[in-house]
């Protein structure tokens, strides 16, 4: 999805008062401190090493960089990453 379409979908979802992840397909990241991260709305894992986790979403890719990253669980709907998370990058 390109950025123009994405912006349009987001404005549409906000005008009809729907959550943006339903129409726009945006990933939901819930972070607890710097050690736990829950991710929803993703397509799959592109690459995973102990220090890097790359995830494919509808709107692009998310790079999670840190140390001793462990995937606590990985299901159809949700995944949880724990470890020392240094930074999260969004790449189109």
């Amino acid at each position, binding site marked *: 999805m390109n950025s123009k379409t994405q912006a349009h979908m987001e404005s549409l979802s906000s005008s009809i008062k729907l959550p943006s992840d339903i129409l726009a397909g945006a990933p939901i990241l819930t972070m607890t401190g710097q050690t736990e991260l829950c991710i929803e709305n993703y397509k*799959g894992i592109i690459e995973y090493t*102990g220090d890097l986790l790359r995830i494919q979403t509808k709107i692009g890719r998310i790079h999670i960089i840190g140390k001793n990253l462990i*995937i606590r*669980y990985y299901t159809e709907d949700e995944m949880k990453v724990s470890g020392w998370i240094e930074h999260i990058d969004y790449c189109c």
Partner: protein
Amino acid sequence: MLDYFIKWYYGYLFVRIRGNSPERFINLCRSRDILIWNIKKCEEGYEFLIRVDHFKELRYIAKKTKTRPYIRRRKGFPFYVKKLWERKGLCVGVTAFFFLLYFLSTFIWDIQFSGQYTYTSETLMKFLQEIDVYAGMQKKNLDCPAIETAIREKYTDIGWVSAERKGTKLLIRIKETKMPTLYEERKTPVHIKAPCDGVITSIVTRKGTPKVKKGDKVKKGDILISGVVEIMGDNQLLVNKEAVPADGDVMIETTIPYANQFPRKHLKKLYTGKEQIEYRFTFHKNQITLMNPINFLNKIQKYDILAEKKQIHLNHSLVFPIEMERIAKREYKNGIAIYTDKGAKKLAKKQLSYFVEKLMEKGVLIKENNVKIIVDKTNCISEGNLKVEKRADLFCTVKEDEWRFALPDEHSGDNN
């Protein structure tokens, strides 16, 4: 917590995969609803945990992604049961232990008494055996209210009884009450006489005629309160005599002689330090004694026995019919010892106080102690007297000629 328990119950495996595309492997697991968790990178590949029943489904995914899964560890209830199954003897033993524990806990193994003073535990235990209550009986046959009623009926001076079952123990708590003895009124006419020589210190007459007063000196056998009551007429002439059972409290002050003597030389136990120890196990009247076999060769002639008994129990209320006793036999030899002056006097005083205690139990009041203790080379001599006050409790039946009064016969016919 529940989630962890469910995974443990079904069993899970610690798996390592090696291969070219582990990320594809993980994504395929997700798409096929195969739950894997705690995924982490390791030196040789990736490690994760997976349930036992899902592991079989990994074969197709491993083939597709050209990875190889290796089982590193197996954890959970199914594997635990399998380990136990290889050691059947242990399982049977543990099961038998718990079964035996439960079976033994359905019996009463100990009966304890508390609060008894006049009646010994042995007396009460004997009575309980008569009503079929004993150590070794089944709990279902125990009727605590019936035990309480039976004890109260048998022993009338026990005011309160409580029978309580605690685990495998039967606790019986007793409170004895000092019931006042019923006053039995005498019917036979009697005199109250002096039981010994002395001086009257107090006299209270309830029935009869007092013959002495406070301060009078009396001898043994003197009548203190007479059972003959003289009935006087209006003109102060004796009209009649009546015989009554004399009643009253008369206190007499008297002296009791005391003499005691014992030699200073006496036998004493001299312990050699040699000790033989035995262990005795008792299971419900059956006994086994364990001791060092060398003790059979070195038999001790004279010894004191010190025994320490313990009953096996899980807690203070769950006791079992197995007792362990440690018996120590301490050898001694008879030797001769001589009391020191201080020791002899101490023993003489102890004997005197025992004598005084016995007197006081009979209701005698000690006023003065004039006993002297003399220690010479061979003996210790206690001599003297005790000034006491005691009650006159000597009764003597009134003779008929003492109270029969012949009335003048007005019908003699001689008109005098």
